């Protein structure tokens, strides 16, 4: 309990210190609860998510960093490894390949990498996975871009 708090506080200071270091990630800690974080990540370029800003919700367990944080998308996203309704993310480093050397910041980076490189063979969103698996890359990209426009971009006008 005390160890996780100390570690999160360290990460908080680190985030404050190099706020401009990674322009694609903006990590914010909840004002009253250091175990709750939100992050805004930019969709990687040359993907259907380009131009979108996605919101992530972190829920950090008390055993952190011995156990991974729970992360989910708050913004709707059409991606084979993200549950379309709940925003749950299927990523090995958030489950069985977790290591205490990961930080919230590096988890965000891993999620950005996952957005650019989907794994259609372990899908949480079967429709998206099937499109990719059947080779319909154009169909997948247009669907993903549509949802990015609908949910992850500021409304115009």
């Amino acid at each position: 309990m005390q160890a996780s708090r100390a570690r999160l506080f360290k990460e908080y200071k680190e985030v404050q210190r190099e706020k401009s270091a990674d322009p694609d990630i903006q990590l914010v800690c909840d004002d009253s609860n250091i175990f709750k974080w939100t992050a805004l990540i930019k969709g990687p370029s040359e993907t259907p998510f380009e131009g979108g800003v996605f919101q992530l919700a972190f829920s950090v367990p008390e055993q952190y960093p011995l156990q991974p944080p729970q992360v989910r998308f708050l913004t709707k996203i059409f991606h084979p490894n993200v549950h379309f309704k709940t925003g749950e993310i299927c990523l090995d480093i958030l489950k069985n390949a977790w290591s205490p050397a990961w930080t919230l910041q590096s988890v965000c980076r891993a999620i950005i990498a996952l957005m650019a490189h989907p794994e259609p063979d372990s899908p949480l969103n079967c429709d998206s996975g099937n499109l990719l698996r059947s080779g319909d890359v154009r169909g997948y990209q247009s669907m993903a871009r549509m949802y990015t426009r609908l949910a992850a971009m500021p409304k115009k006008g």
Partner: protein
Amino acid sequence: MSKRVLCKFFAHGACLKGEHCEYSHDWNDPPNLICTFYQKGVCAYGSRCRYDHVKVSRPQSSTASSSITEQRPPVSDDVVFGNTGITSNGVAAAPEFSPSRSPSLIPSTPGWNQEQQYHEFVGEDDVGQSRIISPAEIPICSFAAAGNCPRGETCPHIHGDLCRTCGKHCLHPFRPEERAEHIKSCENKQKHLEALKQSQEIECSVCLERVLSKPTAAERKFGLLSECDHPFCISCIRNWRSSNPTLGMDVNSTLRACPICRKLSYFVIPSVIWYSTQEEKMEIVDSYKAKLKSIDCKHFDFGDGNCPFGTSCFYKHAYRDGRLEEVVLRHLGAADGDTVIAKDIRLSDFLASMHLQ
């Protein structure tokens, strides 16, 4: 009166007043075990106080007062009270007492008189010259050896040669073994200090703190992994390796692996300093293993128990008579021509498997 109470400084083996002490230096006399603060009302130590919390004015109420009265049966309670009355302010009263009682103990001039000392030294030196002893037997000036001799050039004693590592004049010019020994130990010390200095900056990747800046001494240790060179606190890496494998984590590929490079290490070596070369790491690992090898294995239990680690156990496997365990490995020829090393075969294993069928 207080002569009948054992002096507590004497009891610890160091009473500066010697025979002038107003307390007894006779082991047969009882010590004063009554808390003086409690007598006055409040003792800050409360129940943790090492002295007895009893009111001595109440007759025969405690072990301390009764033990005193036992030894001196004719003395009544008010004497006991008076006794402790003196000891209760004995600490404060002592400086007033001692000059009058033992004037010889407080010299009017300080004993560490420069001039007097100088004459002594000169006198010694003269004797040394007249007897002609070998220069190796003359001790070197201890002031110079400690760093600085106030007399400098005029010092009658030999000033040792400068040790380059510690910067003190502590090398005896005529004792070669002593010199070599000092230089060696000094260099080792210096190396250790350097390593410690370099280790200060190193951070643990689990708690993200500097390992040697942790609050408790037990935490200020590195945990070295045998197969890679990533630094962690001993507590962090042990916690991670012993944490429960949840969410389908594989013990070998996740928990036993380095959190950074995922290289599998089977054991962690505690160390106060971080190494800079592989030789230093080997030295740390070897000394750790040697230390464990001198401790009896609790699983082996002098031959009564059974150690699950067998021949690869780091601890000592010795029987009660000091004989070391001899391991005879059973080599079995497998069908494909390879040889395998068989584990211990036990009757209980067969019985257990039969029971299942």
